[in-house]
């Protein structure tokens, strides 16, 4: 069945540095979504990518959908303490499948 994998599982970042988290699917996706869950909170929708090679930006966050529509990445520049949390990707095949998430901690 469909599997969505995220790496790394944990990301420890110095404040001000950049980092990237990756999402890979075993099947070709119709779209991919990204969510953020703050510690103790619930997942919040960030963005959806639909087209092959699509790139979208939200302030310091850059989201990319791979050409083959089987992978995606989230790049955060100049990490801030407000970026702390777990970032999930969710890929749509015949249903939406969530990755296990990348948990981000920030060193001030």
């Amino acid at each position, binding site marked *: 069945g469909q599997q969505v994998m995220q790496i790394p599982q944990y990301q420890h970042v110095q404040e001000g540095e950049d980092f990237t988290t990756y999402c890979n699917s075993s099947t070709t996706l119709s779209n991919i*979504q990204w969510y953020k869950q703050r510690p103790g909170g*619930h997942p919040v929708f960030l963005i959806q990518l639909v087209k092959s090679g699509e790139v979208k930006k939200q302030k310091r966050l850059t989201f990319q959908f791979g050409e083959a529509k089987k992978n995606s990445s989230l790049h955060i520049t100049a990490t801030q303490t407000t970026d702390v949390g777990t970032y*999930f990707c969710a890929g749509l095949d015949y249903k*939406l499948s969530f990755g296990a998430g990348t948990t981000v901690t920030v060193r001030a």
Partner: protein
Amino acid sequence: SQTIHQWPATLVQPVGSPLSLECTVEGTSNPNLYWYRQAAGRGLQLLFYSVGIGQISSEVPQNLSASRPQDRQFILSSKKLLLSDSGFYLCAWSVRQWAGAQYFGPGTRLLVL
């Protein structure tokens, strides 16, 4: 605007006891509804989804069940809880099934002892 409510926020239950978690959505009609479970430090496991009143699809066989008695009400139940049922239960809704954003409720933290 649309809002989604879940209650209770936290729950501690003994093994073998029944369970009923409720989720309601306001400000939209005919939402697609979902129940997820999140184990500590883990991803989201889809348990049930519903496209309409009385229509429930189960993703994972287990001792849980779901019902949708009204358009904007989704209930998660169990007759006898297991230790492995502990976790963070999240209800979500979307306009379109699967495609488009899912909007999550605040969740219920369940501890089975």
